[in-house]
């Protein structure tokens, strides 16, 4: 599964798949259709094909072809205006059979109940997120990422809430709630509260981020446990990727969460009936809702399943960081205004060109970082012994590193010496740019904005051409967005209690980059373009200031 393991074999497999143009998948579509029909549902299928920009080595797929099967339980005497969704991913290899079985069982049970006021859609999606993306785009008749899917035949009106069920093991000891969705969006907190309340009522162990809740809040270990749980949430949210099949629902303003059965080899076992009761309870509650979930929070961080940190508490922390940038900018502005015109010869103020050139060149580098890896994969594969995926990731890293030579190139374009005022103006621009950028990011995805602010604000605040070059350069490289990503990978593994060696960490780092690019291409995640097109050029501007002549 490693990214660099046996490129030749990988390439051969990819070629084979491409030529055959047929996946090795095996979801029992006909059986599912027949079973759902016999349970009294209206059953429809949707087929989809998707060609990934480059092979996904984590999940071993390139040309994806699959079928979604969904059955609609029509609520009696309801006009098809509202619906709830229960989904279970089903693919070859990932053994989610338990969840599909439970879904079918629940469908049969729900069918004989008279009290449903909303249609309930039971969805079995193939190829997890790709299938879910196809289904959701089909349902809402949009096409944001250029997938190819067949139109849906049956609908149930506007979807009010959705749950995705993943039971990968035969023995379930606890249920984990996954909330983080695409671009760090979160469902309404009431959905989490609902889950927690029912777990308490039925007596199921429930976790968030795979961590149990502890009651010793006031002790150090209890506090650090909660802090670790919250850090995990911050890192997951910052990644901007959907951490479960529910993640794609959030774009459509549908409150959704994934429930994942975990086998952690404890004594405590939960049988499927109990999970069924839990789901029945949750669906009956959701069914009784007159309005969409809207009363509670949409912005929160959870140190445990029953506690949350609201936006009012965490936003000031970010605000204080951002204020540094603004104060620095104000300071520079005052300095620029106060400094005497100096020698009264010709262009006393730095020319527009001297500011514009680095800005434009940095952004060109950003555009190259965004577009070239995927465009140049074929060429790279022909000339180097690497697979497509490696080609993409390594090209990205190469362009990223090449950006470090930028000040040299800039100076070649600029004639004459850079003035003292020149770098001040450039820094003012960079500071304001960074402040706006981080502010907007934090509003959309707090965690990402906060992590970027933590690493970028110190260097943005202190960097000048007069600091010791070697030391500053080392610090800047260590705090660059790429390195921050590397640290995040290690911290994440550490927090998950699966520490990795340096070698494995590096592998993971490479695969995280490829996943980020794929997430952007497949689901429209914005983290990769944000980093490549905006954050990285901004960092390059600061790098430029350090090497100002």
């Amino acid at each position, binding site marked *: 599964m490693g990214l660099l393991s046996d490129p030749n074999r990988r390439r051969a497999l990819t070629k084979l798949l491409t030529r055959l143009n047929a996946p090795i998948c095996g979801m029992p579509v006909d059986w599912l259709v027949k079973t759902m029909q016999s349970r009294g549902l209206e059953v429809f299928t949707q087929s989809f094909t998707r060609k990934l920009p480059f092979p996904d080595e984590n999940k071993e797929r390139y040309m994806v072809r699959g079928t979604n099967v969904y059955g609609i339980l*029509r609520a009696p005497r309801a006009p098809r205006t509202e619906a709830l969704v229960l989904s279970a991913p089903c693919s070859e290899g990932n053994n989610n059979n338990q969840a599909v079985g439970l879904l079918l069982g629940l469908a049969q049970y729900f069918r*004989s109940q008279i009290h449903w006021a909303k249609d309930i859609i039971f969805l079995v999606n193939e190829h997890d997120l790709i299938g879910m993306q196809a289904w959701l785009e089909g349902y*809402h*008749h949009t096409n944001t990422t250029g997938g190819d899917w067949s139109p849906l035949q049956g609908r149930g009106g*506007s979807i009010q809430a959705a749950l995705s069920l993943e039971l990968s093991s035969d023995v379930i000891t606890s249920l984990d709630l996954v909330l983080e969705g695409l671009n760090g969006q979160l469902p309404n907190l009431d959905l989490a509260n609902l889950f927690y309340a029912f777990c308490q009522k039925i007596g199921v162990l429930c976790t968030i981020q795979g961590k149990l809740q502890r009651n010793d809040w006031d002790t150090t270990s209890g506090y650090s446990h909660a802090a670790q749980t919250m850090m995990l949430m911050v890192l997951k949210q910052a990644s901007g990727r959907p951490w479960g099949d529910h993640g794609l629902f959030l774009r459509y303003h549908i409150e959704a969460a994934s429930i994942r059965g975990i086998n952690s080899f404890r004594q405590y076992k939960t049988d499927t009936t109990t999970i069924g009761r839990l789901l029945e309870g949750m669906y009956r509650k959701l069914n009784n809702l007159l*309005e969409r979930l809207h009363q509670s929070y949409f912005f929160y961080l959870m140190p445990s399943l029953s506690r949350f940190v609201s936006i009012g508490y965490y936003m000031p922390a970010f605000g204080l960081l951002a204020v540094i940038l603004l104060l620095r900018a104000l300071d520079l502005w005052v300095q620029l205004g106060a400094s005497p015109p100096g020698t009264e010869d010709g262009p006393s103020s730095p020319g527009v060109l001297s500011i514009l050139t680095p800005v434009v060149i940095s952004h060109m580098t950003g555009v190259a970082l965004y577009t070239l890896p995927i465009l140049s994969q074929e060429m790279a594969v022909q000339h180097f012994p690497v697979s497509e995926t490696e080609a993409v990731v390594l090209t990205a890293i190469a362009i990223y590193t090449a950006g470090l030579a930028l000040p040299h190139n800039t100076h070649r374009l600029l004639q004459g010496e850079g003035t003292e005022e020149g770098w001040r103006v450039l820094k003012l621009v960079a500071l304001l740019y960074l402040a706006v950028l981080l502010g907007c990011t934090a509003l959309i995805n707090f965690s990402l904005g906060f992590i970027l602010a933590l690493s970028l604000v110190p260097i943005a605040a202190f960097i000048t051409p007069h600091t010791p070059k070697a030391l500053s350069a080392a610090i800047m490289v260590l705090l660059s967005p790429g390195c921050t990503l590397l640290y995040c990978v290690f911290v994440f593994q550490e927090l998950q209690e699966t520490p990795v060696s340096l070698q494995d960490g590096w592998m993971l780092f490479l695969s995280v980059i490829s996943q980020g690019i794929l997430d952007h291409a497949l689901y429209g995640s914005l983290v990769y373009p944000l980093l490549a097109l905006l954050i990285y050029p901004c960092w390059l501007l600061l790098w430029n200031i350090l090497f100002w002549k």
Partner: protein
Amino acid sequence: MGDQFQEELVIRPLHSGDIYASFQFRTMWDTDFLRGSKVSHYRLFPKSLGQVISKFSVRELHISFTQGYWRTMQWGQPFLPSPPGAELWVWFQDTVTDVDGAWKELTNVLSGIFCASLNFIDSTNTVQPSASFKPLGLGNVTDQRFLRYAVLPREIVCTENLTPWKKLLPCGSKAGLAVLMKSEKLFHSSFHSQALHFRPVCQDWKCKSTVWELRQTLNVVFDLHTSGQGKREWSLFKMFSRTLTEACPLASSSKVYVDVTDNPQGELFELSPTTPLLSQAVVLGDRRTYSVYDLTNQATFGQTRSLNMLLRWRAAERDMLRPLLHGERYVAGYGLQTGEIHTLMYNNHPYRAFPVLLLDTVPWYLRLYIHTLTVTSKGRDNKPSYIHYQPSKDRLRPHLLEMLVQLPPNSVTEVTMQFERALLKWTEYTPDPNHGFYVGSSVISALVPSVVAMDTNSTRECPLFSSFFPCKEESSYFMRVYTEPLLVNLPTPDFSMPYNVICLTCTVVAVGYGSLYNLLTRTFQVEEPSPGLAKRLANIIRRLRGVPLL
């Protein structure tokens, strides 16, 4: 000829295992309320309705209350279609001068009669369709000035609507078929629709004079899994928890029909008790065979003096049907700024194209971009041959769009239109704004090619359920299909903060200020208890004697 009353119950076993029961009641009213003579004598016709109709000079009145959506793909076509919620359309006499005023008063009166929120019909949801709703009765008034049409998609139908509807029947729910209408069973179903149609029809086959027909229909579908406990076995008792014991004594005919078309030899289901009477009727472009139970004949009830038909399925098959015409509608897109309404119309006829009339009524708060209107069939642009569009006026009237579209054989025609969601004033939001706002069903009216020759002679004796829509030609029949209503979310401000502030302020004002004000303005004085009779006498005596009082 005088007044006349007929009642009918049609039972159609559906392939999905569900069962469809349709009640039809027809009251003929031989009167002439138009000539100005005040009608005060009522025999069978309900007086409450008759007075309203004569007061407002109504020519035709159609009102339906429906809970649920008719599943065409599973159940086929209903005898009488109706949209979810309440629908009301009225043709006024051409003598009416102030149609809008009469319409407003009429909706309020009907709202009282049927215990429904018809009083919410106002100019923002009333339209005058130019072609979709032609009069169904006699007369050729086609000036749409006298037509009003409104739908309330959110109206919830329940027992309080059923009771006044039942009271309009001559026998009430005391005798005849209406004894089966027990609300606890009727509302334990997949679909429930009750309707009332009032129109002028011919008196006899010569059609020299007209009488007024009041037709009351009630359609209900019982579900195999929830009402039938999953068993493919139905009886009158299981459906209605009642059996039939007599016909309505006032009825000139009282019959129960069971559709046995697909079951000539009894291979599909078993029907007991058997009846020798068979009847054929052309319904919805198809010749159907029915077993008939005549309730006016005592032999029908047999030894037990009660009729409880039993239908037991032998074979289980469930395939989705391919109805000739059906429609679908949904909102596409995401976000709260814009959206797109998609209407799909399926023509499943293998080789015949036919035209349909599409009527769309969209509330003003969805601002339609009419330039984005596209009609495509089979991937090609399909130009409507007639478009009638009336733009909305904010807070005054809705959008009205009518189109005549030719549906090619075996095709799906898609009508799309983009819209922008308006930001309402804060007082215009409903109490539950996050539920969303309803857009009524669009109406597809069509002349569908018929498989068998239709019966154009409207005066011949035929079952009630087959004779509602008048038939002008033999080769096609009229059909109306309603799509599902839409639920659209509008940009909604967070009402919780103002709500809390208002609640808190009111409480503080009421409790704090109120009690303080009370304390400040009230004057306190010690009230002396009034002395008893003995004491008062004693005091009078003491006063006379001149000693101090007690």
